[in-house]
């Protein structure tokens, strides 16, 4: 219905100004068809011509050009906006957006753009939509113009400010206006001082960059001093926030470490098996995610956003099954012989890697982020990325569930009994071999679930496990073998420490310093942060 009304309105508008509009359209069509010819270097001029001649009708064309969906037909060089559909590529007329049939990709050629053009297009779209009736369009236009330094836009922005009713759009416009005033130096001193105040209220990185540029070119000492003092105050604010930002980075690195290590905290920490194939359990989980996404992509594309929910239980089962088989097949013959266990599990890890390489190929596999896992939002002067937040939350949930399983369930009780005193537990009627196998499967299964999460931030390749195995052992040993809370605190401490070191020491040195710290720490407290006390220690 809405669309119908819009069409009628359009038709009426056309009827009212039919003659000049027809002329303008002809000119536009002419300019549009020129896009199909010529070199990339000639494009900026063509786009400015289009922007001058056009009105908001040209916006879809600009958007398509920027997104790379503007094509021309090889046969007659006619320009179309395209959309890929099930049976080929749908062509749409660039101005009216009417569908003009379906064709194959081979008969079309893309109109090339580069970053410079995309920037020009963004500004052009912003200029054209600044007075649009749609609030969200106006807002993004106002924000986009913050980067512009074209004084010609100032009158347009003034007009827009004059009409604007929405508070948030108004603020964005004022900020852009301030930025432009300072950049172009086309205003009175009072205007410039006002602009500095506006940017002070903004107080973020963007404002800082405008002010720094202004100070470098300002001629009036009064303005320069005002701007310099604002810069100092913004810097102070940002420095305070950067502490919070570092803590956040540290926690999110810690959560990744926790996820990678938590399965190992069970197999190594609780059972005492030095499992060098732990990383490969993580890898199996990541490849399970890849396969689930493949199936969903091919058969149920609508479910893509839920792919991780399907992958989690499957990854748990897949890695758990491999872990179970490993325990029954190899490790149970090697209890009490740590060196042999280490070598055997290392061998298993190499075999699993090469098996995955043979089956899936050596190259990275594409695991997509569902929509809710991408993007970021701002908190004060901090940027929190969505995937990190989810991973942090997921790590906490896994940790909590594991804690409950070990503390509150019959199975958990039996696990603890077996690891604390095997013979006594056996005498009480617990099937200790069975518990061993299940515990190992549980640890491996959790590693598999970690793989699902890590596939979202890392790449899925046969080498995935190797990236995390050292860190995992580090966390478990540091936290204290046999204590889940130790693993938790250990992971978070190492994460935060690493992130506070990184800005000063660089990523390479930060990693080395962390390792040195752990070595010294283990010298002092060989049993880690949270050492188990009592008889279990001696077993």
């Amino acid at each position, binding site marked *: 219905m809405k669309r119908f009304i819009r069409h009628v309105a359009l038709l009426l508008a056309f009827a009212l100004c039919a003659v000049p509009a027809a002329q303008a359209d002809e000119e536009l069509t002419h300019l549009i068809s020129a896009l199909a010819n010529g070199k*990339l270097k000639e494009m900026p001029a063509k786009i400015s011509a289009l922007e001058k001649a056009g009105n908001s009708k040209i916006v879809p064309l600009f958007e398509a050009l920027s997104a*790379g969906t503007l094509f021309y037909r090889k046969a007659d060089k006619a320009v179309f906006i395209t959309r890929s559909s099930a049976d080929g590529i749908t062509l749409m007329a660039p101005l009216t957006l009417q569908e003009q049939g379906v064709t194959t990709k081979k008969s079309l050629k*893309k109109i*090339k753009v*580069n*970053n*410079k053009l*995309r*920037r020009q297009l*963004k500004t052009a779209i912003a200029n054209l939509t600044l007075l649009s009736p749609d609030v969200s369009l106006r807002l993004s236009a106002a924000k986009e113009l913050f980067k512009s330094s074209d004084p010609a836009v100032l009158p347009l922005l003034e007009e827009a400010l004059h009409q604007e009713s929405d508070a948030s759009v108004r603020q964005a416009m004022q900020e852009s206006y301030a930025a432009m005033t300072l950049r172009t130096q086309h205003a009175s001193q009072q205007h410039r001082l006002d602009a500095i105040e506006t940017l002070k209220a903004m107080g973020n*990185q*963007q404002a*800082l*960059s*405008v002010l*720094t*540029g202004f100070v*470098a070119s300002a001629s009036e000492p009064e303005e320069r001093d005002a701007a310099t003092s604002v810069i100092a105050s913004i810097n102070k604010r940002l420095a305070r926030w950067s502490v919070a*930002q*570092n803590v956040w*980075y540290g926690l*999110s*690195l810690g959560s*990744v470490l926790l996820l990678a290590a938590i399965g190992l905290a069970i197999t190594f920490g609780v059972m005492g098996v030095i499992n060098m194939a732990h990383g490969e359990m993580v890898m199996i989980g990541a490849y399970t995610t890849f396969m689930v996404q493949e199936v969903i992509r091919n058969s149920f594309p609508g479910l893509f956003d839920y792919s991780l929910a399907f992958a989690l239980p499957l990854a748990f089962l897949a890695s758990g099954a491999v872990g179970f088989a490993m325990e029954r097949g190899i490790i149970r013959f090697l209890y009490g012989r740590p060196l042999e266990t280490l070598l055997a599990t290392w061998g298993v890890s190499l075999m699993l890697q*090469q098996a995955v*390489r043979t*089956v899936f*190929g*050596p*190259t*990275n*596999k*594409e695991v*997509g*982020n569902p929509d809710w896992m*991408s*993007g*970021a939002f701002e908190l004060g002067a901090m*940027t929190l*990325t*969505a*995937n*990190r937040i989810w991973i942090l939350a997921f790590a906490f949930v896994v940790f909590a569930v594991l804690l409950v399983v070990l503390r509150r369930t019959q199975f958990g009780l039996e696990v603890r009994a077996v690891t604390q005193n095997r013979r006594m537990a056996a005498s009480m009627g617990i099937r200790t071999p069975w518990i061993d196998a299940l515990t190992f499967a549980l640890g491996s299964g959790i590693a598999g679930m970690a793989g699902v999460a890590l596939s979202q*931030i*890392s*790449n*899925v*390749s*046969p*080498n995935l496990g*190797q*990236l995390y195995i050292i860190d995992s052992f580090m966390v478990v040993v540091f936290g204290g073998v046999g204590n889940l809370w130790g693993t938790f605190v250990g992971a978070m401490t190492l994460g935060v420490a690493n*992130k506070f070191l*990184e*800005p000063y020491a*660089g*990523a*390479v040195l930060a*990693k080395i310093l962390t390792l040195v710290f752990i070595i010294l720490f283990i010298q002092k407290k060989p049993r880690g942060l949270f050492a188990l006390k009592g008889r279990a220690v001696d077993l």
Partner: protein
Amino acid sequence: MVHLTKKASMAASVGLIATTVLTSAVQAAETIKVGILHSLSGTMAISETTLKDVMLMLIEEQNKKGGVLGKQLEPVVVDPASDWPLFAEKARELLAVHKVSAVFGNWTSVSRKSVLPVFEELNGMLFYPVQYEGEESQRNVFYTGAAPNQQAIPAVDYLIENEEVERWVLAGTDYVYPRTTNKILEAYLKSKGVADEDMMINYTPFGHSDWQTIVADIKTFGSSGKKTAVVSTINGDANVPFYKELGNQGISAQDIPVVAFSVGEEELAGLDASPLVGHLAAWNYFQSVETEANEEFIEAWQEFTGDDNRVTNDPMEAHYIGFNMWVKAVEKAGTTDVDSVIDSIVGVSVPNLSGGYSAMMPNHHITKPVLIGEIQEDGQFDIVDETDGLVAGDAWSDYLPESAKLIADWRAPMACGNFNVETKSCGGVVSN
């Protein structure tokens, strides 16, 4: 299921090659052996397996055309398993046991450095297909990948001219290629008048996966009001999390473009490229090059691998050029004798896939065009810039004071890889 049968047919074809190797060992006199020294397992298998396959394809095609000097070519594949000392061992095996006429192989610089003494001692020929840091020219090695002046410098020039970049982040993985390349770039940028405070140099460990702090630093560095770009020599697996973090923190290519020297079609095949659209890469070849030769090459490659989605990349083209150069040089010399071929190959020129001819220079580097491509959503590159002519590979960078005075020329009177033009003697300072 379709996937599985393809895998099976691949396995069968590998098996077939293995048996041909066995049977033809009996009639060794009638074949010319070609060694392939690429890792098929371990961390570098991700990149090198493809190069092994492309060599098998090139050899198969040459055999269909009647081989070389009327003899069939016989590939000898060994697996150095991403283990640098093993590279030297396997190279020795190829040269001493199998007596191959030429070897095509290696990816990392450290593996190349580890086989150099072997090739020198046993007098073999090595064709090295990967872009590298330069500062080397060896009699037995032919560098068909890009030297820094065929990749890094033109990329920086593009950013200065087209994006008006004034501030630079040089980000790399901590090993010899990024360190040397960044040293050259730093000297070059300084010669262009870039101040020290407008350069940020950052190194990360291999396989670095937590990029939050560094990306935030780049964002801060880039918000000083001057246009900023990142020149990335980040290697291998660390790229995916880096680009993902850039996308997540909302840095688009229009704000801060990243130009990479190690990201090609193969690497992009393993990731969702939509947040990367507009970021750049500099290579001497892209799959999207529109020439007939390239179309044929892609078709042959996809048919050989039985996979319509297999991509081609720059090091594959380097092998294509290197292999054809070797064939032509052998035919010119009329023998596979290494000394004669080394003499005859200088000056040989063969068609490359981007529509021109690449020639072997006296310094054992080749001439190539330099292309700048923007990443597209489908993981391919749109070529946005191209050097006017071919660029000759420079073994010794002109921008580093200690190597500016060195030249390499392996032709008869000079026959030296590091001739010092000041002291007029062979054996200048060799860095790294």
